[in-house]
């Protein structure tokens, strides 16, 4: 059972150390159900599914490393992680915001449908797979550092941003960048080789409209994560977009 360390008009602090994820998440849901809008979790280490399936706009602050599937299927709250996160952040997330002040693992934002994920550091493999958007529901992932292979695989909608801060010897993204992309846009700052791109993707210069969107996002990102954005200019980014909606139309013989 998570011990309540503090409860005040400023929110609740729960001690999560040694508490199994089941109990922890139950308590979080209970508090939010009772109207609590601000919960802090201390001593988190490896508990899964925090924020999973939650709706409404509460703010959950996590001190420690949350376990896999942080904010999976989440639909409204804001989660702030003051450490690194693991795999599966924002899995099929619909709405809300997740801020990670550290790096995140693999499979961030899989099938994300809305909301925002800001990671100040690096992200792993298979980030932003099959993100989708519809009208105003546009999911966004911004990573301050570098990404591994398969960034934006199968992307169908939404916005991915890769800033490439930090170790400039490393390539900003891995291979198979945007492979299978058929919608959405990926903004990348830093050097990309033709060889890294998926077959469906082309590099374009950003339009004025895109520059404006990007600018706003970068500002929000900088302020939320505290990352040093002084060297980052909107002009440094290129836009990766699919050049066909039906890249696989020719594959079949009837």
């Amino acid at each position, binding site marked *: 059972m998570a011990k309540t360390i503090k409860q005040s008009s400023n929110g609740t602090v729960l001690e999560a150390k*040694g508490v199994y994820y089941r*109990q922890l998440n139950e308590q979080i849901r209970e508090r939010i159900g009772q109207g609590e809008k601000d919960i802090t979790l201390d001593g988190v280490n*490896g508990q899964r599914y925090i924020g999973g399936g939650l709706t409404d706009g509460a703010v959950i602050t996590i001190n420690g*490393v949350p376990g896999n599937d942080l904010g999976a299927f989440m639909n409204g709250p804001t989660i702030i992680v003051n450490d690194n996160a693991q795999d599966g952040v924002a899995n099929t997330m619909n709405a809300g915001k997740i801020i990670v002040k550290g790096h995140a693992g693999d499979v961030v934002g899989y099938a994300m449908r809305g909301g925002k994920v800001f990671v100040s550091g690096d992200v*792993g493999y298979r980030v932003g797979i099959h993100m989708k958007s519809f009208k105003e529901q546009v999911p966004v992932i911004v990573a301050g550092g570098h990404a*591994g292979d398969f960034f934006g695989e199968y992307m169908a909608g939404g916005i991915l941003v890769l800033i490439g801060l930090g170790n400039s010897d490393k390539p900003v993204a891995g291979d198979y960048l945007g492979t299978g992309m058929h919608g959405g846009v990926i903004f990348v700052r830093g050097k990309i080789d033709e060889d890294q791109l998926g077959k469906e993707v082309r590099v374009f210069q950003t339009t004025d409209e895109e520059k404006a969107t990007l600018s706003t996002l970068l500002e929000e990102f900088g302020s939320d994560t505290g990352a040093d954005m002084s060297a980052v200019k909107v002009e440094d980014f290129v836009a990766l977009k699919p050049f066909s909606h039906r890249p696989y139309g020719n594959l079949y013989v009837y």
Partner: protein
Amino acid sequence: MAFGDQYSKWRVDQEHVASACGLSGVISQDGHRIGGDVIIESMTVLHDRGNGLGGGFAGYGIYPEMKDLYAMHIMFEDASGKAACEELLSEEMEITLGEELPTKPIPRITDVPLLWRYFGQPRKEMLEASGMTADDFMVALVMRINTVVPGTFVFSSGKNMGVFKAVGFAEDVGEFFRVSEYEGHTWIGHGRFPTNTPGWWGGAHPFNILDWAVVHNGEISSYGTNKRYLEMFGYTCTLLTDTEVMAYLFDLLIRKHELPMEVACKVMAAPFWKDIDKMKEVPRDLYRSLRMTYSSALVNGPFAVLVGHQRGLVGLNDRIKLRPLVAATKDDRLYVSSEESAIRQVCPKPDTVWAPRGGEPVIGVLRGDA
């Protein structure tokens, strides 16, 4: 608080969670002693990656007073298998000490076989007659025991190291074998979620041959190909689990074929042809030749493995990183695990933390004597 209390609570709440296996490892590169409680503690965080049908550990440097003798951990279904095995052992080896493995009865660990350990070395005359090196002799002996003596198998056979494994959650297995009472410079741990093979003690990880111990998360889709390749060199795959081939591949490539560790890793997680084609001439010729010669040693399918051996610890992912692996350092210690939280549980403030790239090994090396 005893380990049992904390975990029994988890068990009551635990429901079936579909996830893969979990692994964790640590090495003190300066050879300092690390208690087994550290690896057990790390594994507790990975509890949900397993389903209680297998758990295990391997520790290196745990038998310092017998460090030059082969330490064989053997499980027997019954007394007759034990008698037959001991007879074979005494024919082939000079056994200095044979005793029961120290264990503690745990209600959650059931169907316990007879568990013994023997310290010894090959009989000089048998070794000379065979014309083999001592290591090859031991490999042949272990293969023989595992295939010929009924209801028996050797689950570890290295020097100054030992594997402890059973059907159960990792932390329970650790408690059962009293792993916290040992100290070593290198530890690996594993919790299993088997679907492909029955939950039997032999199928738990780590898999071992000589002092190679492998824990593995994933499934080897090239198993049939790898197995047939290894059989050509006298390794028999008896343990009904695909991970077995990885232990033998490390032994073959590094001990027999003398490939450096990084190169052996690049055989098992070979670079893509498109990347080999882009290399400069000398490395290109090397990697092309390696891939052509060792095509049946390519390990396909998702995997993250940790391999312990006498001189270090290696973590390796498949080349498109389909399984998670995280590494961290703190002073002279290297930690590698499936999840960062497993590392942070025993090392709250590491100096560095990073995620290795697919196909790029993380290598920890034991410096000096240990």
